[in-house]
C-alpha cells in the first residue's frame, strides 16, 4: 500500500538542561505571583498586555530568546523558547505585549530583514521593549489572505504610500510597530500570491488610524487599522519586494505549532480541575491529550531548530490543539456549579474567547484543507 502520511517527527525527550531551565522559569513566575504582579489568566497571550512584565521577562532572558546575541538577544534554541513559553502559558502570565514580536517578527527579520532592519529592531524585541501588531487580515480577506487589497505604492523618492484597512489587528492600539502585508504590484489572477510585500510600519505614522474592535468578553485587543496615504520610508520594506507571500507562509510554521495552540485555557483547568465533581477519568483523558500535544509541539520546535519546515505537523497541532482547548472550557462549564455565586472570571473568559481559538491563525477548515493537500487528497 502506498504510504501517504508524512513521516512522523522524532520524539523529543527533555534533558537536564531543559529541565533546569523549566525549573528556573517556574521559580521566577512563583515569585512574580507572590509579589502580586499578575493573576493567572485564560487567553493571556492575547488579553494579557503588560509591557512592564514583558520587559522584566526579557531581563531574565525569557523574551526575545531566539534573537542572536549580536543583535541583543539571548541566542537560545527554539526548544528552549518552547519550554519557557509553555511555562508562561501554564501560569497564565501576561505575555501579550511581546508575544507577536517574539514569536514571529524576530524570525521574520532574521530570515528576510536587511542588516539595517535587524540592527534597528531586534535589540528592542530582545529586551521586550519593542512591541508589534500583525497587519494581515482585512474586512474582505480572512482565510483568503492572498486577496488582501491594502496597497503600497512607491513614490518618486522611493518611499511608500500605504492605503487600505486591516482588521483583527491584536494590540495595534498599544504596539509600536505594525508588520504589514500589502500589495506592491497589481493582482494577477494567474499568480495570486505574487506582488505581495511586507513592511515594518511605525504605528505613529500620520495617516494611520486605529479603531477598537471590542470582543464579546468585553476585552479590547482587536482593532481596525485604517491607512489613508500613510507615507513610510523605503527602509520599511521587509527584505525583497514581492516576497511577501513566501515570508508569510514561512511565519506560519512558528505561528501554528506553538503551545499557545492548546494551552490558552490551561489556567482554567488548574482552577477548576480539582473540584468536588471532578471526574478522574475525564481529567486523565484530558491530561493525556495535553501531554501528547506537548510531545508533538516539541517535535516541531526541534525540527524548526534543525532548519526543517514541518508544515503538516504544525497544522495537526493547531487543528487538534484548539479543539482540545475548546473542549476543556466546555467540560469546565458543564461541571461548574456556582449555586447562587458568581462564575469564576476565567470560566467566563474561556466561554467567551473559545470561538476564536479555532478561527485565529488559520481556521479548522483551512487547516484540514492543508492537511488534505499534504496527504494527497486535495490538489
Amino acid at each position: 500500500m502506498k504510504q501517504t502520511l508524512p513521516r512522523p517527527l522524532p520524539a523529543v525527550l527533555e534533558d537536564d538542561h531543559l529541565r533546569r531551565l523549566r525549573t528556573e522559569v517556574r521559580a521566577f513566575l512563583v515569585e512574580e505571583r507572590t509579589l502580586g504582579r499578575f493573576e493567572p489568566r485564560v487567553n493571556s497571550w492575547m488579553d494579557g498586555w503588560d509591557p512592564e512584565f514583558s520587559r522584566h521577562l526579557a531581563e531574565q532572558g525569557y523574551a526575545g530568546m531566539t534573537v542572536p546575541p549580536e543583535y541583543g538577544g539571548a541566542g537560545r534554541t527554539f526548544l528552549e523558547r518552547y519550554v519557557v513559553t509553555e511555562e508562561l502559558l501554564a501560569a497564565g502570565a501576561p505575555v501579550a505585549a511581546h508575544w507577536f514580536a517574539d514569536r514571529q517578527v524576530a524570525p521574520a527579520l532574521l530570515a528576510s530583514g536587511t542588516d539595517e532592519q535587524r540592527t534597528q529592531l531586534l535589540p528592542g524585541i530582545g529586551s521586550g521593549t519593542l512591541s508589534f501588531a500583525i497587519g494581515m487580515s482585512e474586512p474582505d480577506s480572512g482565510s483568503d489572505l492572498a486577496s488582501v487589497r491594502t496597497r503600497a505604492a512607491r513614490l518618486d523618492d522611493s518611499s511608500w504610500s500605504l492605503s487600505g484597512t486591516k482588521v483583527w489587528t491584536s494590540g495595534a492600539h498599544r504596539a509600536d510597530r505594525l508588520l504589514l502585508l500589502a500589495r506592491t504590484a497589481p493582482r494577477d489572477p494567474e499568480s495570486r500570491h505574487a506582488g505581495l510585500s511586507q513592511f515594518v510600519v511605525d504605528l505613529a505614522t500620520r495617516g494611520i488610524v486605529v479603531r477598537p474592535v471590542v470582543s464579546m468578553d468585553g476585552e479590547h485587543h482587536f482593532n481596525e487599522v485604517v491607512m489613508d496615504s500613510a507615507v513610510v520610508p523605503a527602509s520599511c520594506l521587509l527584505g525583497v519586494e514581492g516576497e511577501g507571500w513566501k515570508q508569510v507562509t514561512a511565519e506560519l510554521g512558528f505561528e501554528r505549532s506553538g503551545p499557545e495552540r492548546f494551552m490558552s485555557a490551561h489556567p482554567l483547568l488548574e482552577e477548576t480541575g480539582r473540584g468536588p465533581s471532578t471526574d478522574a477519568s475525564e481529567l486523565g483523558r484530558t491530561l493525556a491529550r495535553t501531554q501528547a500535544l506537548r510531545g508533538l509541539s516539541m517535535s516541531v520546535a526541534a525540527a524548526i531548530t534543525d532548519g526543517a519546515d514541518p508544515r503538516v505537523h504544525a497544522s495537526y497541532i493547531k487543528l487538534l490543539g484548539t479543539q482540545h482547548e475548546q473542549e476543556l472550557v466546555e467540560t469546565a462549564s458543564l461541571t461548574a456549579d456556582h449555586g447562587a455565586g458568581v462564575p469564576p472570571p476565567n470560566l467566563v473568559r474561556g466561554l467567551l474567547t473559545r470561538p476564536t481559538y479555532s478561527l485565529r491563525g488559520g481556521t479548522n477548515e483551512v487547516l484540514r484543507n492543508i492537511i488534505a493537500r499534504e496527504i494527497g487528497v486535495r490538489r
Partner: protein
Amino acid sequence: MTVLFDADRDLTALVADLLATTQHTSEWRSDLDRGLWDQLAELGLTTLLSQQGAGWAEAAVLLEAAASHGRAVPTTEHDILAGWLLEAAGEHDRLEGLVVPATVDAAGGAPVVPWAPRADHVVILSPDAWVHLVPGSFAVRTEHTDLAGRPCGAVLLPAGAGPGTPVPAHTAQVLLLRRRLARCVEITGAMRGAVDLAVAYAGERQQFGRPLTAFQAVQHLLADAAAEQALAAAATRTALGLVEVHAAGPDGVTPDVARAVTIGCSVVSRALGTVSRNTHQVLGAMGTTVEHSLQAVLRPALAWRAELGDVVALERSLGKAALAHHGRLWDWLTG
C-alpha cells in the same frame, strides 16, 4: 543535549520491502503466514529485542509496518513478551519456532491467548511469579477465533508441568507494560495503514462524475484521521523513547515510564475511534466487506485495543495520580 528518538531508516526500508507484497486473502480468518514468519526469522527480525541486541526503535519498525499492512506477524508475542520472559527465567535459548506468553490465574488458566494454537511452546507466568515453558500441544485446551480472526487458545498450566523457574515479583507488571506499549505501536501502524487505504480508495472511486477526493467533506474526514494518527504516533514515540532511555530497573517499572505508556494507551485508543470511523466512512459499504483489506487492518487494531484493558480505568488512574499530587496539575504532567 536533547535526546531525540527516531526509527532507523534503513531498517524501515528493508521491512517495507519485505511486506510490500500485500496478499489480502479475503478471508474472515487471519492465520499465521508461516512462510513469512520463517523468512523474517531467518533475517533475525523476529527476535530483534530478545536476541539481536536491538532496541525498541528497531522492534517498533517491524511491528508498525506489519500492522499497517494487516499482516499477521506475532513478534509482540514471540520477541517482546515471550523472549523477554524466557530471558527473565534464564532460558533465552529456548526461544525457537513460535513461542507465545500466557499469564495465568490462580487456577492456572488463561482463557484467551492469541496465537497459542499455532505456538510451538507457551511460556506461562503464574501469579506467584513462576515461569513454565510448556509445549503448545500440552498447554492449549481449546481453540477459538477472536474478533480479528486470529486463532486464540484457552491455556491451562498442565498438572505435571514441574516447578518451573522463579522470577522477580514485578515480572507480571513489566510484562503488562511491554504488552501495552507494543500494542500502542501496532495500533498506530494499523491506523496508518487504514488511512493509506482510505486515501487510495478516495482517489480512485468515482461518484457524480468525479473522484471522492473532489468532495471537501471526504478530504476533511481523511485530514482528521491523519491528525489523530499523528497524535497517537507522537504519544507512542515518546513512550518508546522513555522506555529505551530508562530501562526498567531491578524494582520494575519506573513511574514516568508507566505513566507514558498509560498516556499512550489513552491517546492511541481514542485515536482509533476516530480513525476507524472516518476511514470506514470514506470506504463506504466496500470497506465493511471481508473482500476489502480495510477490515484486515482495523480488526486486529480493535483486538489489540481490547488487550490494553479498561482504558477509562487507565485514564482514571492518571487523573487520580494528578489529583494526588501536591501542586499544579501542570507540575505533575511535566514532572
